[in-house]
């Protein structure tokens, strides 16, 4: 075997030689390839464009007939390819201008801890695992009440012009600033006031985000002994993995992950047996009990050493994440389920939607959130990932490419949700209050939940694809024969097939996605007998996503709070001060825990009232990030191309501010927090309420006041940040940015790079040759481990 050291240096043509960047010692550090349009490449891109055009035609024009969800996937992939190759590259050339002769923070600092130069393909995996969570799975499922078309359009087009752009630009500008966080960049660019506002906004919104994520998890596990058992098992499994790694076999991560994965599958399979045994009743927990469990768990996870719980559970959730996404993609391609939902439903144009209230503009954008544009990504794209990039030119692949993958996950979640029967979908996603009010006179307190849901669906003012009233239907196997059940019997059969006591009013999106996934996957592996396994597999993976977000974000928020209090009492800045960390963790947990409790006990359905607040919060963080990016683009002298961040910023501002306006001022009781607040107060004052109805009314008055106040606070704070940003833009323009001069001073001064790595996912032929040369002439220890 020959080693690369003895290998000969590759030979270059003069054209190739001209495209290689070298440092002062002649070591290659980058490749700037000029596009060469060979006939094969032209043919390839024409083919991709034709496939994309065919997909869009199927989705948007030929929609009278039922559309196969495979078209969602095909259209998405073709559009992503074109956007990545052309639009993202255009942005890179205009307002990023990566320079591979400059060392990245990872190469410069290289301390073996946070500044850790990481292979681009590995970093892509890390970045994707950090940005992908339950958001892109849940949002599209809820938005499916408007039909499949609005969601598909926004998930695909949104990522192209907004989500990918935000992630990539924040990543790039943070990398040029030593990996500084969004809050720090806001302070540098917009001033002390703007920076403080950004930090406060982000902190409050994190609490909302955590409360809603936890609410989704609680709704998925409430009254489900099987789910409680299998998800509960992840905690002891993670603890054992942590101890194994710490004391038995340090560093054997793949080994312990494999053991953990097997234990996880065993927990899912064993869950059925436990649920059906006499232990099952003990695990039949009410939502309120689960809230208490979540709060205790969140506190412990944030104060326990990370090696014990957080790190091992992260390994589990990363493998589950990748595994489940691959499984779902294979399922959709193999089964090619047909969309059961119409292209656009009545709920896109009125506020009667039972899942969430509000018309397409702006509430589609608020509800989809993470799959198209997610403010939370700006937190990973600044601070964590930029400290690990090896070469500046890799930003497009990691930032834009990572977000494309997230959007792809959202498209698959949407496909799984809309391939469910419409009646089943709405029965699962209507709160008990919505079922009662929709069923009207047909509602009976003595009837089963399934019968009341059937009555509600019969009255629901929505049409199926043929234009008729939707009907609840479900295909199942009874005594070995295929049968199609309808109405309440169908809902009962769904519950039996997935191994749950009931599927009615299982709001939050997670159970719907799990039924959708099980409905697809049982056709690939296992048939009806495996359906309950697939359902609980999906619930497990969503719960893992959410739990790892809950404990990680609780920790992040605890550090932020400690830092903030540290301004007055410096001791709080010390993360190893036990009492301080317990106090700050307690405050953080109490903040999201009380919001969670409010959601769980909300008489109008927690998801329905809180999810819009979550979406608005998330999209407003994106508005903050895009505002800061816009300021940086102007200061850099790129005024001509400032429309690139401005297009998503204007779109996002329009949707979030309109949504907030409607939530605050709308007189429609289904939408406006304060309108419902006042109307409920009036009803209490009228004195004709008593018992449970009176208690519910008091809860509604309290909850709407909290939600309304938060809505006002968010929008005022973000408007303040935007005003401060406008001031710094005007100052920059006066200082010379209007003439295209570079007036920014917060980028790190350039330092020469001595390292080479290719920029895309796969290396081009020339990049491979340069890699081979670098292996011979480069410093093999440059990036090997920490500096000293």
């Amino acid at each position, binding site marked *: *075997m020959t*080693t*690369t050291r003895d*290998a000969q240096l590759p030979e270059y043509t003069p054209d190739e030689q001209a495209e290689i960047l070298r440092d002062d010692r002649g070591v290659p550090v980058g490749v700037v390839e000029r596009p060469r349009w060979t006939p094969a490449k032209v043919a390839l891109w024409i083919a991709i464009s034709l496939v994309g055009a065919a997909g869009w035609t199927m989705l948007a024009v030929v929609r009278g007939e039922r559309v196969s969800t495979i078209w969602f996937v095909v259209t998405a992939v073709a559009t992503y390819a074109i956007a990545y190759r052309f639009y993202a590259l255009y942005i890179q050339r205009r307002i990023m201008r990566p320079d591979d002769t400059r060392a990245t923070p990872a190469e410069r600092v290289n301390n*073996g*801890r*946070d500044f*850790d130069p990481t292979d681009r*393909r*590995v970093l892509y*995996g*890390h970045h994707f695992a*950090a*940005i*992908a*969570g*339950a*958001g892109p799975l849940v949002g599209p499922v809820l938005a499916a009440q408007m039909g499949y078309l609005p969601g598909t359009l926004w998930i695909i087009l949104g990522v192209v012009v907004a989500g990918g752009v935000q992630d990539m630009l924040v990543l790039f500008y943070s990398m040029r600033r030593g990996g500084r966080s969004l809050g720090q960049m806001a302070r540098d660019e917009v001033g002390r006031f703007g920076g403080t506002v950004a930090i406060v906004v982000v902190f409050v919104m994190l609490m909302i*985000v955590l409360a*809603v*994520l936890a609410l989704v998890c609680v709704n998925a596990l409430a009254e489900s002994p099987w789910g409680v058992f299998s998800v509960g098992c992840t905690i002891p499994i993670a603890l054992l993995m942590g101890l194994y*790694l*710490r004391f038995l076999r*340090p*560093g054997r*991560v*793949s080994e312990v*992950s494999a053991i953990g994965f097997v234990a996880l599958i065993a927990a899912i399979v064993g869950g059925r047996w436990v649920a059906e045994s006499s232990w099952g009743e003990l695990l039949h927990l009410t939502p309120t009990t689960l809230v208490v469990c979540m709060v205790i768990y969140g506190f412990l996870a944030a104060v326990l*050493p*990370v*090696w014990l719980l*957080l*790190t091992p559970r*992260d390994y589990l959730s*990363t493998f589950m994440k990748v595994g489940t996404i691959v499984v779902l993609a294979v399922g959709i391609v193999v089964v090619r389920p047909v969309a059961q939902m119409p292209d656009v439903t009545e709920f896109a144009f009125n506020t009667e939607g039972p899942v969430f209230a509000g018309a397409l503009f702006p509430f589609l954008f608020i509800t989809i959130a*993470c799959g198209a544009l*997610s403010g*939370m*990504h700006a*937190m*990973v794209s600044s*601070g964590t990932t930029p400290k690990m990039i090896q070469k500046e030119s890799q930003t497009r692949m990691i930032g834009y490419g990572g977000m494309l993958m997230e959007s792809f996950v959202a498209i698959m979640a949407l496909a799984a949700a809309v391939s469910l029967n419409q009646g089943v979908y709405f029965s699962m996603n209507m709160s008990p209050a919505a079922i009662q009010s929709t069923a009207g006179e047909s509602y009976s307190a003595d009837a089963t939940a399934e019968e009341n849901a059937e009555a509600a669906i019969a009255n629901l003012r929505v049409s199926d694809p043929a234009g008729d009233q939707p009907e609840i239907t479900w295909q199942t196997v009874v005594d070995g024969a295929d049968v199609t059940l309808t109405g309440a019997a169908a809902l009962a059969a769904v519950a039996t097939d997935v191994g749950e006591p009931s599927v009615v009013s299982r709001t939050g999106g997670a159970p719907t996605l799990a039924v959708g996934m099980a409905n697809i996957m049982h056709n690939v592996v296992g048939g009806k007998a495996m359906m309950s396994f697939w359902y609980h597999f999906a619930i497990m993976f969503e719960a893992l996503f959410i739990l*790892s*977000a809950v404990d*990680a*974000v609780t*920790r*992040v928020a605890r*550090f932020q709070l400690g830092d903030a209090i540290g301004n007055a009492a410096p001791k709080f800045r010390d*993360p*190893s001060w036990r009492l301080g960390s317990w106090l700050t963790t307690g405050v953080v947990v109490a903040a999201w825990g009380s919001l969670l409790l409010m959601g769980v006990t909300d008489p109008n359905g927690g998801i329905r009232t809180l999810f819009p607040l*979550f979406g608005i919060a*998330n999209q407003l963080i994106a508005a903050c990030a895009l505002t800061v990016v816009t300021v940086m683009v102007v200061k850099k002298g790129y005024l001509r191309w400032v429309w690139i961040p401005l297009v998503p910023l204007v779109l996002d501002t329009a949707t979030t501010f309109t949504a907030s306006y409607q939530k605050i001022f709308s007189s429609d009781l289904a939408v406006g927090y304060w309108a419902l607040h006042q109307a409920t107060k009036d009803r209490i004052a009228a004195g004709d309420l008593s018992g449970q109805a009176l208690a519910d009314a008091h809860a509604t008055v309290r909850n709407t006041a909290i939600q309304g106040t938060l809505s006002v606070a968010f929008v005022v704070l973000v408007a303040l940040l935007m005003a401060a940003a406008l001031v710094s833009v005007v100052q920059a323009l006066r200082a010379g940015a209007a003439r295209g001069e570079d007036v920014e001073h917060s980028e790190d001064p350039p330092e020469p790079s001595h390292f080479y790595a290719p920029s895309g996912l796969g290396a081009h*032929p020339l990049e*491979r*040759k340069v890699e081979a040369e670098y292996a011979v002439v480069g410093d093999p*220890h440059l990036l*090997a*481990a*920490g500096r000293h």
Partner: protein
Amino acid sequence: MGSVQAAAHRGWIDLSRGWWGRVRVVVRGVRWYVRELTGEAAYDRYVAHARTHPEREPLTRAQWWRARDDARESAAHERCC
């Protein structure tokens, strides 16, 4: 140069072994990716690097991972919704 040739060039596979060599490329690739993603390979890199400083005794695997855990303790750990 295709990926198989590239792998042969790096001495990973022997092309005369035919399809078996190709399977080994894939297996090695997956193993490399998983070890990198989990951080397992980081210790090996540390040891390789520590060899350039023979005056200092390198940390054992257990010591190295403990130091890494301690460093993570005070680091924020970002996750999204």
